[in-house]
């Protein structure tokens, strides 16, 4: 039987290859994801462990444990005098202090704008070049800075911006922009690329001035004398520490940093794997369909095997073995392609400014095993039902002409099973969407399984929809192409189950892109709505990337710009309010209502005048949650570690989708007192008259020395955010395009098999007067009808899923908004897919030798 299976495959090499491609792409996506994320993990690990390689103990400021939505409070610096004290300890071999700032150092491009690190760190370092054992950075060219006007920049920036040793570069810090001479170029140990992150290294005194750490260090690194363990060293150091400092072993520091980052790469990994899973799912559909068709076509062959004594089990095994072999080949090719894809995904991220650090590609054994297991498993599982169908071929079919494969025992239960699956999927999706107390992991599991079942269920009942849908989309085809269109439509109705299964693969891809399009359009609409409801200002100053806070000096500069009516800055930082980590903002009570419209829940604009030193405007939902009403008091711990008590003066109800102010807003003066280095989230500006380009000029001039800050009209700001949504959307489209491509292969396969199956019929049609063009058009139209059926089911399904998710996100008040243009585009894509899939099979049909076709057995 093994030989039968092998020979069978060999005889159908081309078709087997086409079937295998369905799984190859899915396996490639999965392998590529693992390779890419493993490589990124290793790069980050390298960064951290190299940083701490020679450090037995590290002293840093004790940051209050406050973190919210990815932002953590920055740790305070430690006094420089601590360094001397530590050096005098017994167990200390050597110690060095360094200045480390993560976000304030902005290197300017040649055009004067700051490099946009897209949220990645823009490091500013002050390092003692004499103590190089603690220095994780390695010079690639030049020397370490020796004077206040010298700087070493990272190799990536030097490369991309074209800065060489000896060039002058302008850098903004907490102080206004200055020019520096590039004394050298460095990289982080062995890591070749830091992604979008940048760094600039100054002498220690320079860094202390620029980054407002006079007389302080951010970290002190210590190595132990021989014979002293890191733990013993830590014990020695603890007593000499001031209360704002902490000490940990080098390894502990590295682990801490590493685990924070691996959460992030985990997220990317699951994100990409989801698309790989979609690709595999579509691939499974294609395999199921293709193998069902080949089994039906090999009826006589299978029947003959039965007549010579093959048992049902042997037949089933032969089919499964074929599937196994196809899966095996698919896994091998898929894995190799996946490694290539890892390079491709990295390139894609680079193009979208989402680059991450990389080193040499990591191909873990786990990746190889996964590739094979997944590829083979998906193929064999998909082939399971067809293999069962193959066993139903009875020996008599070897001699009888053209009999239909008998339906299985359970065939008539199919609609009920389909409805049951649909019910289950809706249940799971409903639970995932609407229950509150669900762990994130569980929620995603419910969603994943729910969506999977939804697609399977819809695919199962879609055969019932083929007739009406074929009529709907086929009639225009007939009008266009006459008899070819008529025959094409009838052909799709011959085997509604098969048509539905072919269309299903495309349906999945289209449903997902529709889902993504509707969801993102709704989010854009909500974003716009939220901003327009809250902001009345003409201009907005933000940082270059739009969400990290920027230097307060920029806000001050804007306030003193010419020709403006009013300017007010809004400070922002994470803090602990009533024991919960949230964003806290500092506002100017006498100016804020000119630019920000409070939707008061309890209180009014008068509350702003009443704010005083310890008054707070509180988000209504938070207040309800904490049982706070006007007059109540609660504790506030700032990100710099200072605590105070605040009193609720009013509550307001901002749009849940995008709250521009923090959960708690206090007066700017109080905010500044409670934070070391207060930064701005926004500066809002009103000008007399309209916000024109003319009016913008003085503002831009004022901000010239603050490269990280930028000013825009409110409308421009909203449009910029729309652009960011669009960028993300494009990336999702590209990732989902993979599934559409797989379904194209599925359609080519099915059509080719159909043409093969109808060889004699095609011969007859040609013999009674069908031209080659008519034959080609008939196949092409059939393909387009099938594709449009996929669209007709997929697009509404996608809209439904989006509506479901939006309902589930009710607390964020996402406004449902269906974008017409993308939907029309998707329908056109379906037509194009149909046309492309038909090219080869149609040519085959047209080129048939009429006589041979007529005599075909």
């Amino acid at each position: 039987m093994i030989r039968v299976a092998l020979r069978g495959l060999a005889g159908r090499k081309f078709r087997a290859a086409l079937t295998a491609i369905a799984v190859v792409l899915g396996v490639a996506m999965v392998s590529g994801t693992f390779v890419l994320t493993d490589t990124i993990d290793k790069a980050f690990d390298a960064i951290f462990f190299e940083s701490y390689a020679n450090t037995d103990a590290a002293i840093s400021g004790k940051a209050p444990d406050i973190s919210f939505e990815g932002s953590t409070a920055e740790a305070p610096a430690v006094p420089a005098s601590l360094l001397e004290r530590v050096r005098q300890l017994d167990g200390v071999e050597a110690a060095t202090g360094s200045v480390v700032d993560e976000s304030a150092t902005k290197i300017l491009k040649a055009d004067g704008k700051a490099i946009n690190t897209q949220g990645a760190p823009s490091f500013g370092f002050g390092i003692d070049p004499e103590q190089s054992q603690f220095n994780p950075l390695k010079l690639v060219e030049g020397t370490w800075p020796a004077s206040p006007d010298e700087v070493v920049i990272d190799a990536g920036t030097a490369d991309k911006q074209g800065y060489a040793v000896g060039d002058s570069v302008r850098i903004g810090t907490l102080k206004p922009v200055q020019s520096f001479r590039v004394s050298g170029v460095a990289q982080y140990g062995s890591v070749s690329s830091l992604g979008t992150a940048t760094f600039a290294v100054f002498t220690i005194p320079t860094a202390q001035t620029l980054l407002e750490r006079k007389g302080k260090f951010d970290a002190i690194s210590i190595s132990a004398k021989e014979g002293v363990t890191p733990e013993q060293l830590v014990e020695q150091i603890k007593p000499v520490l001031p209360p704002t400092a902490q000490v940990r072993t080098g390894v502990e520091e590295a682990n801490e940093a590493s685990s924070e980052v691996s959460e992030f790469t985990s997220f990317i990994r699951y994100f990409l794997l989801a698309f790989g899973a979609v690709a595999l799912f579509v691939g499974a559909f294609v395999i199921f369909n293709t193998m069902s068709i080949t089994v039906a076509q090999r009826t006589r062959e299978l029947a003959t095997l039965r007549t010579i004594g093959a048992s049902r089990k042997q037949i089933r095994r032969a089919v499964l073995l074929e599937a196994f072999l196809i899966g095996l080949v698919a896994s091998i090719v898929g894995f190799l392609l996946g490694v290539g894809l890892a390079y491709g995904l990295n390139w894609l991220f680079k193009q979208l400014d989402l680059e991450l650090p990389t080193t040499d590609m990591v191909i873990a054994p786990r990746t190889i095993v996964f590739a094979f297991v997944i590829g083979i498993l998906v193929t064999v599982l998909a082939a399971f039902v067809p293999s069962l169908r193959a066993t139903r071929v009875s020996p008599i079919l070897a001699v009888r002409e053209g009999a239909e494969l008998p339906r299985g025992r359970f065939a008539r239960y199919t609609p009920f099973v389909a409805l049951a699956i649909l019910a289950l999927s809706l249940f799971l999706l409903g639970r995932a969407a609407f229950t509150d107390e669900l762990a994130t992991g569980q929620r995603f599991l419910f969603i994943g399984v729910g969506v999977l079942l939804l697609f399977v269920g819809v695919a199962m009942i879609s055969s019932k929809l083929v007739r009406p849908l074929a009529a709907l989309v086929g009639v225009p085809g007939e009008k266009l192409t006459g008899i070819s269109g008529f025959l094409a439509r009838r052909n799709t109705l011959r085997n509604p189950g098969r048509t539905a299964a072919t269309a299903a693969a495309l349906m999945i891809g289209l449903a997902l892109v529709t889902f993504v399009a509707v969801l993102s359009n709704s989010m854009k609409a909500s974003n716009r709505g939220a901003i327009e409801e809250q902001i009345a200002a003409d201009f907005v100053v933000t940082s270059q990337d739009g969400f990290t806070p920027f230097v307060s000096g920029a806000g001050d500069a804007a306030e003193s710009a010419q020709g403006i009516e009013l300017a007010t800055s809004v400070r922002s930082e994470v803090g602990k309010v009533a024991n919960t980590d949230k964003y806290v903002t500092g506002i100017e009570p006498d100016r804020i209502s000119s630019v920000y419209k409070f939707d008061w829940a309890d209180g009014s604009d008068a509350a702003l005048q009443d704010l005083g030193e310890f008054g707070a405007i509180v988000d209504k939902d938070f207040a309800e949650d904490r049982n706070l009403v006007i007059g109540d008091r609660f504790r506030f711990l700032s990100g710099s570690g200072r605590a105070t008590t605040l009193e609720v003066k009013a509550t307001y109800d901002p749009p849940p989708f995008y709250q521009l102010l923090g959960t708690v807003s206090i007066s700017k003066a109080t905010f500044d007192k409670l934070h070391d280095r207060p930064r701005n989230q926004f500066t809002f500006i009103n000008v007399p008259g309209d916000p024109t380009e003319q009016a913008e000029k003085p503002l831009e001039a004022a901000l010239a020395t603050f490269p990280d800050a930028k000013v825009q009209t409110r409308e421009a700001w909203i449009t910029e955010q729309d652009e960011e949504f669009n960028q993300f959307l494009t990336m999702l489209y590209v990732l989902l395009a993979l599934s559409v491509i797989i379904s194209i292969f599925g359609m080519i396969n099915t059509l080719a098999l159909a043409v093969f199956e109808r060889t004699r019929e095609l011969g007859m049609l040609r013999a009674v007067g069908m031209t080659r063009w008519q034959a080609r058009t008939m196949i092409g139209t059939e393909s387009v009808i099938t594709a449009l059926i996929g669209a007709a089911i997929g697009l509404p399904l996608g809209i439904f899923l989006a509506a479901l998710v939006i309902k589930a996100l009710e607390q964020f008040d996402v406004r449902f908004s269906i974008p017409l243009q993308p939907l029309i585009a998707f329908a056109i894509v379906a037509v194009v897919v149909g046309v492309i899939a038909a090219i080869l099979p149609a040519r085959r049909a047209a080129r048939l030798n009429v006589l041979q076709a007529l005599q075909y057995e």
Partner: protein
Amino acid sequence: MEASQNGAGDGPVVIANDITRRYGEGDAAVDALRGVSLDVERGKLTAVMGPSGSGKSTLMHILAALDRPTSGFVTIAGTRLGQLSDKDVTKIRRQHIGFIFQFFNLLPMLTAEENITLPLALAGEKPDWAFLDDLIKRVGLGDRLKHRPSELSGGQQQRVAIARALASRPTVVFADEPTGNLDSKTGGEILALLHDSVEGYGQSMVMVTHEARAAASADRILFLADGSIVKDLGGAGEEEILDTIREVTLT
């Protein structure tokens, strides 16, 4: 009802001129037809008989423009087939040739009526319902028009095929073993129907068959053996045909 036929008004409908058909090269070459010439008469039923390997099917394929001869040429309705493009050949098929196959070759997803009008639809022509109604009645399908082939018996399917072949009133109809897949009673009915069409419509027809009874209904019977015409009978009875077959095969 007289049917006006496509093509020239008089003379043979199909002319074969010294047709040879060779398969393969050199030592392995097989000559299926060796220099066959014949004129197919208008308005008559010509039967072509012979043992397997005699070349009868090959001859019909070439006459019907399904295959090209290695040498020699075919003329249909006055047009020499020669080096015609596929498009022109297709035009000839639409206007001048009708087919009746052994395995009925109907499209399963079309009704009987749609199958019958299929060649006309392919040619983009409007059906002449006056003629078609008469044809359908003559063929005996009156109440079965809306049925799919799977709902028809073998005999009924062949009637549909016959109606389809005759619907466009072609110059000549080629029938390849039309009764080969039918039981003897149904086969007899079909043969009568074919004969009736030739008589009633003046339809020219060429029928390949190995059954003596089928050939007995023909106006002219050609016997092939080893790629050549060995006997050319006018109308003959079954007995005479069987004798001739024996005679031809034993040579």
